[in-house]
């Protein structure tokens, strides 16, 4: 078992008390809903991939749904996100329709990139999201730049991006962490420590868990249970408050496990079976489901709703045409005026309540 998996997971804040204070029952159901949607979209997409309808490689975030759902749920409409490859729920929280995601995966029009980019490399700029590039973790400096602009303009907003344990080894991690610390930027980095970078276990990636580095950059650091959406939410919500109040950047380590291979072709034979078993028992969707059932919500109905939403999404996506080959070289440059990112959805009731 990888070091971080066996080590104790200390939530930086008392998850239970914070969430009971902040999250309404409906919020907690919504969190489950986004996670179910993410899992469902990815299941459908995997099927489409196996049917040869999704070109290229197929990546998913199975078992990590709590991290993108929880963190994105803590963001306000005016915040900005750079979404990574195992973070589909963030797109959904921000308001991207599942059908568009599936069209995107299949390289069709009505996806988010008009066929120009593949399954995980997208973002809806109208919803305040920048899609990742493959080079990891290149979005960290980009998130810094958004945060820098907010700070310079005196706006109460923040930027958030995710990164992996493997990505933490690259220079851009360091340059971004360092600058975020120097300029006390309102930025949040969520490090998804899923024990592996492709086949590489964390012990070949770093000698000391990178969360230990946060303080040495002047960045607030904390570790949360990455399979607990509410714990992730709480950490991100607190980090956001810190950012807006001038308290500077936060690195949240969300400890989890990549429960599928790196991509669909990878049988992850290199992962010890006990490790997978250990984490299977901690499935983030089931955890949240148990929670809302305890709160008296009708999880079965929710699942049924999600299923029919997804059925419709698949049908819709399959109807979308492939892009026009004649357009292939178009759009390399912006010809009109530069339009900045727009606001996303912010379903957390705290923001709606405020807005009301």
């Amino acid at each position, binding site marked *: 078992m990888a070091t971080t998996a066996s080590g104790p997971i200390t939530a930086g804040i008392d998850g239970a008390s914070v969430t009971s204070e902040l999250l309404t029952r409906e919020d907690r159901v919504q969190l489950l809903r986004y996670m179910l949607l993410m899992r469902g979209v990815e299941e459908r997409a995997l099927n489409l991939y196996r049917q040869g309808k999704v070109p290229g490689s197929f990546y998913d975030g199975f078992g990590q749904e709590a991290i993108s759902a929880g963190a994105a749920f803590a963001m306000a409409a005016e915040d900005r996100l750079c979404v990574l490859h195992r973070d589909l729920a963030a797109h959904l929280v921000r308001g991207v329709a599942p059908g568009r995601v599936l069209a995107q995966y299949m390289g069709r029009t009505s996806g988010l990139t008009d066929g120009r980019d593949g399954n995980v490399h997208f973002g809806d700029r109208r919803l305040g999201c920048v899609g990742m590039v493959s080079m990891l973790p*290149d979005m960290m*400096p*980009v998130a810094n*730049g958004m945060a820098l602009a907010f700070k310079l303009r005196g706006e109460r907003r923040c930027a958030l991006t995710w990164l992996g344990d493997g990505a933490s080894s690259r*220079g851009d991690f360091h340059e971004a962490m360092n600058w975020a610390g120097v300029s006390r930027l309102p930025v949040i980095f969520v490090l998804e420590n899923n024990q592996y970078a492709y086949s590489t276990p964390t012990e070949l990636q770093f000698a000391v868990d990178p969360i230990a580095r946060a303080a040495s950059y002047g960045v607030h650091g904390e570790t949360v249970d990455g399979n607990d959406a509410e714990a992730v939410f709480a950490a991100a919500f607190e980090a956001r408050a810190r950012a807006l109040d001038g308290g500077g950047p936060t690195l949240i380590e969300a400890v989890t496990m990549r429960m599928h291979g790196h991509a669909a072709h990878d049988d992850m034979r290199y992962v010890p079976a006990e490790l997978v078993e250990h984490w299977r028992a901690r499935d983030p969707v089931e955890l949240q489901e148990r929670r809302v059932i305890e709160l008296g919500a009708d999880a079965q109905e929710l699942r049924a709703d999600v299923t029919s939403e997804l059925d419709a999404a698949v049908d819709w996506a399959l109807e979308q045409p492939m892009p026009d080959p004649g357009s292939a070289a178009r759009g390399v440059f912006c010809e009109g005026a530069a339009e900045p990112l727009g606001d996303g959805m912010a379903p957390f009731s705290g923001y709606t309540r405020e807005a009301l």
Partner: protein
Amino acid sequence: MPEMTYLQAIHDGLREELLADERVLVMGEDVGRFGGAFKVTDGLWDEFGAERVIDTPLAEAAIIGTAVGAAVVGMRPVCEMQFADFVACGFDQLVNVAGKMHYRQGLAVPITVRLPSGGGFGGGPFHSQNPEAWFMHAPGLKVVAPATAADAKGMLIGAIHDPNPVLFFEHKHLYRRVKGEVPPGREETPFRARVAREGRDLTVIAYGAMVWSALEATEDIDGASVEVIDLRSLVPLDEEAILASVAKTSKVVVIDEANATCAAGAQVAALIAERAFEDLDGPVVRVATPDAPIAFSPPLERALLPQADRIEEACRELLEY
């Protein structure tokens, strides 16, 4: 119209934009309080403050990536590489993040990256390079390189106004050597070629510092009428201007201060060989720096970089062809 050096013109362009557009930011290593390694940003920190003229950590990837992030939320960052050579350290953020953003997501990235480039003063292998061609070969990036003071200002303003990432190659050797009238205000110089001298017998194509070398070299070649085209912009490349000149003269010499292989001049020569074949009365001759690092010692550096006499000889030979 005021006379300015090429360097002052760049400074003036930055200042006008900082004055007129609060979205404009200047950022880079030592650009603030110190005014930049070449003093291009001198005084801007005093005038506009540390929040708009930002001294950054020593981190080129972060400088470019941060500029991208600020740009997509509405700013107009102008970042400086202390020397163009150091862009190698921010290469990935430029070609993969900035250059591909609009194509992939319809998201514009209005950043300007200033790159003090070029040799001729004993800068050696790491302070003399002309890396334009790397970025010409990376879709989504505009690449411009002014030769005159007026263009330095006008094209910088054009770069800042452009909704795309623009790499602005300012030639260090021109900073204080070149002077000219520079219009006040915020007029853009379009990213199109300029006829630096009209002629009928031969076309010489160059950009940046080599425009001056080309003019000097062809001032008087036994009375031949030599046209000198200043490309100004490499992406977009003004193909029509190139082809029109070659159609007129039928003979062309292409100059690069950069290393020869796959340089801008290679692209220009390939363009002519494909699209102006019937116009040609002789080979498309290239004069470029051989494929070696730019040596430090003056006699070596002189031997590597195209000098006026080498250009003149190439022109003379082609005229006699």
